[in-house]
């Protein structure tokens, strides 16, 4: 079991209006923080609190042709692992982050119910762009 500091909600992430699906504007000091917060948004989508106790650990590597593809592939890989292993990943430790590659450890626990997670993260209007706080991206999630 791994213990994490409690996190109240998801800093630097806010939901934006979308008629059919869910959309989130995510900000981070750098790409690493942007990716971390984006992963936490998936937990929020599932209606789960960001838990302290984690019993499961998985290591993943993701590639992308650019930052946007990396972001989408990262989130979709998490969704894939959640749905095939019936687990929820409340925390992640990102390592070796570049614009085209990341390696990460996911920490979570088995889901005790059918996961109400997303179908997929889309590229719709996606751009990882510079902002006054670092980086910003708006992600649309097909639910």
């Amino acid at each position, binding site marked *: 079991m791994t213990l994490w500091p409690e996190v109240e909600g998801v800093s630097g992430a806010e939901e934006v*209006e979308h*008629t059919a*699906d869910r959309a989130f504007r995510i900000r981070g000091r750098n790409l690493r923080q942007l990716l971390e917060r984006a992963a936490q948004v998936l937990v929020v989508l599932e209606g789960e609190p960001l838990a302290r106790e984690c019993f499961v650990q998985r290591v993943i590597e993701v590639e992308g042709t650019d930052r946007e593809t990396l972001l989408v592939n990262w989130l979709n890989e998490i969704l894939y692992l959640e749905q*095939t292993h019936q687990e929820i990943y409340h925390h992640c430790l990102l390592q070796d982050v570049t614009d085209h590659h990341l390696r990460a450890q996911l920490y979570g626990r088995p889901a005790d119910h059918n996961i109400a997670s997303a179908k997929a993260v889309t*590229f719709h209007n996606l751009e990882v762009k510079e902002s006054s706080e670092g980086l910003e991206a708006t992600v649309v999630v*097909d*639910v």
Partner: protein
Amino acid sequence: MLGTHNFVHVEEFVWEIPPTYRPDMRVPARLYADEELLNLALSDNSITQLVNTATLPGIIQHAIAMPDIHQGYGFPIGGVVATRLPHGVISPGGVGYDINCGVRLLVSQATVEEIQPFLKEIASALYSNCPSGVGARGSLRLTDTELEEVLHEGACWMLGQGYGEPEDLNHTEEFGRVPGAEAAHVSEHARERGRGQLGTLGAGNHFIEVDRVAEVWDQAIAARLKIYRDNVAVQIHCGSRGLGHQICEDYVSRFQKSVHDYGITLPDRELVCVPLDSEEGLEYLGAMACAANFAFANRQRLAHMIRQSFEQVLTGRIKDFHLHQVYDIAHNMAKIEEHEIDGHPLRLCVHRKGATRAFGPGSAVLPDDLRDIGQPVLIPGSMGTASYVLLGTTAAMRQTFGSTCHGAGRVMSRVKAKKAVRGSELLEQLKSRGIVVCAGSMSGLAEEAPTAYKDVSRVVEVVHQVGIAKKIARLEPVAVIKG
């Protein structure tokens, strides 16, 4: 900002934005709607998305949107785009993540009055026997070989396993099996996501619904479809589950690079596309067909479990409750079809994203017993509201590549819907109307509140009046099963 002033009112219920609106448009953008639905469409980004689809290479005639149009991701929901073979593009976003999301309709000789005393038992049996929820697992445990067989054979595989009746396939779009499926182009991720999900409903706006046939406009046609007023009907609305979602993800991601290799520039990355005759295009088409077949097999298995549920509850209590299949349609698909354009037959790739095929009388692809009347079209309403059975028409073949609407279309985000109504309140409202509800999530129920959707009757009236589908019957819910 787009407004009604950007549209040319071509004729009643037909509005167009000319290609002069934006330099990257290749064809006009055409919307089928009344004035109220047009204004609703302008309240989100759906019209901008429609204009974006008019930029796709190889597109012919018009980028089209149905009156249930609403904002999607890339294509608007309710969008229809046809590209010309061989070099016109295919776009996975023009099909959607839930490949072959669609509707199957079953009808019975039993009346709602006959089953009313047992309705709660039926709903409970359906909820118990038909797994629901996004990550739901089914009871079938497929080997690698069996999964590949499902991907190639679709509903035919299910029939071979003893699930369903031969007539089911005859009354399914593509007869339950899209040709050209190539499992070699389906990733391991997709196989793993889908493997345990065959025979499951999913969540969101997916449902099983027991209905009353409330109104019949054409009794002779309805009788041909075994639809009679006050009789029981059952709808299934679901798709290809995690397998389809992953296939779309895989190819949308892959095409992010490919689109540059082919020198294609697009206003939205979710519209990524490649020439249909390219290696990537053909591989996507083969994988998409696999997902479509998985969805047909999924609905075939669910139909079997629904019939079993009815037998479980009604055997010995009601004389004739057997459920016959009216039809099964897809509303997220890309099909290679031949259409007459300017008097000449042309092979096209018709993308329907939240739009339904609506082939008219005489279409060679329809089953023998339906060819003279046209293809049944199934339009589910939002929860607690009406659903419709229509027929495809010759006018649809002329105007919309044989296409029509698919449902009510959302007007309110899921977040707003949950703020506007509590799931428990909605449940009580439905119960007060005599509708039995079995739902896995009160939050999910609130997201699907009828107020979050357009008036489906209005949407159907537009397609009926413009002639791209013909009203046959209206169904009203008596029981709803949701994830």
